[in-house]
């Protein structure tokens, strides 16, 4: 293991562990990125969705003004399109159809009733505005408690109640622990519902390519191949007649990792009308009708000994998954993943976890950076703090003492996860040292001149990444995301093109995959072109999500390039008239002593002059490889975050004074990019922690639908995050790479809440809900003052 600080400057190496600047930057800096809204097809019409303004109701009729007849399309117009069904294999999972356009019933504000088309978006909006929907309104199921009330109206008529599914994990004897444990700590927590908010909203362009006789779908998606498969199924057409292209995608974070009704509806209508269509989601649609994130509730009980050692954990996770089950993840993913990683980095032998997924009249819950783990971390990490308090110890010590020891690796958790490698306590210690706990504790004893209260919060997590077949099979999803392919193909002029099934939308994969090629082939990163995001260009792959692309596609690129390297050495040796074993690759050339030959000459021989090849050598330089990790249970990245806050008890405002992350994602391919992914993740996590929320009122109306009432952190709300790296290679993956795209977003809600509560300790107040708004802080202070008065 080595602690590496990101080598950003003065490094000419371009392979794994170096930080070459990104190949993809140029087009974005010149304003030449091409996002779905930039795409135009001749004869294209703009589509606008007529969305339900009410949460729950039956559609009696829709009045379309005479002048707009023929421009408004309903479910019956695309009846050939099958509904989206995302059912988990879990027993008792209540299935539901998610139709592309509502059939007789709407189930959330934003549910799609019809498609309006016109030459411009503005005119299409005019049509939508002119349509009048006559509803028979049904009682809105606007909250978990309302949904689970005994006589609650059913959102899906054929269900027995409004519960998608309840799953349980039981390891060890929780009842025995309950009876014998000297210390019992209970906690109830809530995480607010919010949106994913990629800066680019979603969008779809569909048109028919007459020459190729195929329907072409441009979608701002993270997984074009998988979209092609499900789209083919729902449209009832062959995958061979479908092409799905993800152009430049302006951020994904999970929200673009679902098969959404919009994609299906636009494709179906375009097919039916023989008319190119474009739908570009606007921000209001994004906030109310794209898949939502979080909204968890926790009931937690820790059983511990006098030193704060947690002996057993009892957890109930309840997630408001909204009105429909999203494909392919299913509605139960969020609660299931939270309960399934609840013990986190801790060695807690006895565990009972119940995951309850509730159906309500809200936009469906989908994956969002950190999926489930943000909630689990929020739960266990605030609970650990509480345990430490109740035994009178510093949370940092209790945290470290409870952690899985490095000598216990690989470690099987009470939630049946196999942690592959790492030193969790050391990571926490380094974080504590960097944030300078002693200095903060000292500062807390001093009176601050501005009356603000200082708090320190820490949070640790372990994160399953790059999991393959075993894990996805265990989850019972409709698709098993077990592998990634790479087709590595040289051009006759000596450039390398990598065709990959992942989708790059900010992660830097057009550079980091080139670095893997450099590692194998010593080809300059600038000579490597990465092609992705087009089902007709790349071999079939699963896309970019679940912190998997670098591990999976990196492994595939490595395997393909290693084979190419062998062949290049053979051809190069032949051209140099050198023994095969005495040549090596460097700087895009094959070297033999002081002589060398450029890859370009090797490629010329391979493609254009087979007569120059060694005898028996096949022409061409092209290899297709498929990679899956040695164990498909995942490579576990982990981290400890620490933050220092100043809470203003007069205004309830929280400022982050310092933020430290020490993390371990195994071997880092590009430390510059790794660090930036961590920082970007932290910024989103701070959004969850402090700013982002879509509350619903009793009518099921979302109360935040624009950036005027929905806040994401800006440059002044995100501190300079200090990132420390540890590198424990995964034993299961090529190069020991672990996934790390999501990690940064996992710990901030827990770290911030712990810090705020540490600050509020002197007032005997505590907050238990995210986002930690000024109102919530002031209310917590007021209610504790009220208790003091009445006591």
């Amino acid at each position, binding site marked *: 293991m080595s602690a590496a600080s990101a080598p950003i400057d003065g490094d000419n190496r371009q392979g794994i562990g170096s930080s070459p600047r990104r190949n993809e930057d140029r087009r974005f800096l010149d304003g030449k990125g091409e996002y779905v809204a930039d795409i135009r097809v001749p004869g294209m019409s703009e589509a606008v969705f007529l969305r339900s303004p009410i949460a729950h109701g039956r559609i009696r009729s829709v009045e379309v003004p005479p002048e707009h007849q023929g421009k408004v399309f309903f479910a019956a117009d695309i009846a050939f399109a099958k509904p989206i069904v995302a059912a988990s294999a879990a027993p008792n999972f209540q299935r539901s159809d998610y139709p592309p356009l509502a059939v007789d019933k709407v189930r959330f504000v934003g549910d799609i009733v019809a498609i309006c088309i016109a030459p411009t978006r503005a005119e299409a909006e005019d049509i939508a505005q002119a349509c009048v929907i006559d509803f028979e309104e049904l009682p809105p199921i606007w909250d978990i408690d309302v949904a689970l009330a005994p006589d609650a109206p059913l959102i899906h008529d054929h269900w027995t109640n409004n519960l998608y599914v309840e799953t349980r994990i039981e390891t060890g004897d929780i009842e025995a622990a309950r009876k014998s444990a000297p210390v019992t700590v209970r906690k109830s927590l809530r995480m607010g519902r919010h949106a994913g908010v990629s800066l680019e909203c979603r969008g779809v362009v569909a048109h028919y390519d007459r020459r190729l006789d195929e329907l072409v779908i441009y979608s701002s998606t993270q997984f074009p191949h998988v979209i092609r498969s499900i789209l083919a199924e729902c449209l009832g057409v062959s995958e061979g007649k479908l092409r799905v292209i993800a152009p430049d995608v302006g951020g994904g974070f999970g929200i673009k990792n679902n098969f959404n009704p919009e994609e299906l509806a636009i494709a179906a209508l375009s097919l039916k009308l023989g008319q190119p269509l474009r739908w570009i989601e606007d921000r*209001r649609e994004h906030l109310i009708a794209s898949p939502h994130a979080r909204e968890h509730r926790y009931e937690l009980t820790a059983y511990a000994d006098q030193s704060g050692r947690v002996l057993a954990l009892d957890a109930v996770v309840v997630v408001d998954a909204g009105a429909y089950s999203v494909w392919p993840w299913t509605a139960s993913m969020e609660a299931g993943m939270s309960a399934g990683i609840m013990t986190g980095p801790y060695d807690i032998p006895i565990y009972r976890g119940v995951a309850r997924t509730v159906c309500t009249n809200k936009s469906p819950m989908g994956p969002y950076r950190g999926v489930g783990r943000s909630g689990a971390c929020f739960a266990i990490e605030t609970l650990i703090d509480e345990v430490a308090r109740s035994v009178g110890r510093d949370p940092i010590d209790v945290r470290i003492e409870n952690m899985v020891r490095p000598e216990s690796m690989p470690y099987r958790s009470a939630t049946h996860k196999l942690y592959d490698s790492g030193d969790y306590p050391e990571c926490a210690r380094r974080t504590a040292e960097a944030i300078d706990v002693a200095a903060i504790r000292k500062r807390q004893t001093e009176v601050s001149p501005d009356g603000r209260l200082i708090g320190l919060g820490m949070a640790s997590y372990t994160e399953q990444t790059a999991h393959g077949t075993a894990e996805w099979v265990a989850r019972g999803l409709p698709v098993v995301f077990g592998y990634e392919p790479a087709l590595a193909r040289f051009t006759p002029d000596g450039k390398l093109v990598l065709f990959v099934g992942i989708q790059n939308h900010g992660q830097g994969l057009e550079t980091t995959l080139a670095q893997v090629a450099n590692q194998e082939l010593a080809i300059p990163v600038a000579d490597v072109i990465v092609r992705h995001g087009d089902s007709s260009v790349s071999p079939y792959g699963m896309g970019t999500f679940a912190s998997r692309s670098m591990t999976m596609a990196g492994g595939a690129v490595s395997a393909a390039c290693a084979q190419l390297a062998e062949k290049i050495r053979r051809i190069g040796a032949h051209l140099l008239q050198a023994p095969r074993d005495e040549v090596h690759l460097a700087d895009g050339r094959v070297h033999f002593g002081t002589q060398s030959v450029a890859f370009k000459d090797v490629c010329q021989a391979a493609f254009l002059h087979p007569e120059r090849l060694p005898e028996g050598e096949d022409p061409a330089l092209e290899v297709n490889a498929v990679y899956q990790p040695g164990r498909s249970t995942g490579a576990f990245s982990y981290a400890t975050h620490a933050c220092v806050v100043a809470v203003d008890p*007069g205004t*309830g405002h929280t400022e982050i004074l310092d933020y430290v992350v020490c993390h371990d994602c195994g071997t880092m391919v590009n430390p510059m990019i790794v660090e930036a992914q961590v920082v970007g993740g932290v910024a989103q996590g701070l959004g969850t922690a402090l*700013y982002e929320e879509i509350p619903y009122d009793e009518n099921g109306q979302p109360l935040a639908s624009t950036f005027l009432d929905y806040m994401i952190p800006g440059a002044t*709300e995100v501190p300079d995050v200090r990132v420390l790296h540890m590198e424990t290679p995964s034993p299961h993956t090529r190069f020991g790479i672990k996934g790390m795209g999501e990690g940064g977003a996992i710990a901030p809600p827990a770290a911030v809440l712990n810090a705020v509560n540490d600050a509020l300790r002197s007032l005997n107040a505590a907050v238990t809900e995210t986002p930690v708004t*000024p109102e919530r802080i*002031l209310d917590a*202070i007021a209610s504790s003052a009220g208790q003091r008065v009445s006591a």
Partner: protein
Amino acid sequence: MKPAPFSYHRATSVDDAVAALTQGAGMARILAGGQSLVPMLNLRLAPLDTVIDISRVDSLRQAHDDADSVRYGALVTHAAFEDRRVPDGSNGLMPFVAGQIAYRAVRNRGTIGGSLALADPAADWLTTLVALEGKLLIAGPEGRRAVAAADFVIGSYLTDLAENEMIEAVVVPRRSATERWGHYKVARKTGEYAESMAIALVDKARNYARLVVGATDGAPLVLEQAAQAFLDGRTDDALRVVIRDELLAAGREFSAARLTMHTTVAMRGLKGAAAK
């Protein structure tokens, strides 16, 4: 998120704009910088038939330095205040406030007249103008009239402006050179609308104090008792109680949290002025 159709009238003068307003019969709106109106149009939240663009009326961009006051045309932008491209009679308060409004790209186009006409209770100019005892010059079909800022705003998004009137200029009395100001604003984020803001003006030489709290779900609140208590030498909890009681007496039904916030902000506004 595109506006519903509307017709467009480019006004050549204030009188021309007023005539167009009159002709619009309540369905015409003035477009100044557009930084609030156009978002509302995009969201289809502002039903109207006609937009009357006053941006070409040059007189509205002018500022005049008079002996006792400064007169700002309605189209003077926030950035013009921020950059001190217009005269200041407020001992620097107005440039300071301007620099805190939204973001630079918005300040470059947003105007003082447009902001005041909207009367968003959380917007900065309203509270500032009430604090500075400014007045608005209003043009209508019957001619011009002046109204004190404090009387101009009736409630949240509600003003004294008739449907065929427009703000032509803002007149801010020159403040005493010995007066000091305090400003305190809390917003969830930089550039966001205030959750609470207070402006305090204190002139020890004249034994004068004025305290205004904004973002109070209605017109800014002028806390006269609190200002007097401050002059009487009350501080800390004693002053806090007066502020709190006066806020409560305003009948705005503040939540406990909001009341705490406004009280704190008012205290800090006064403190800021006193410290200078």
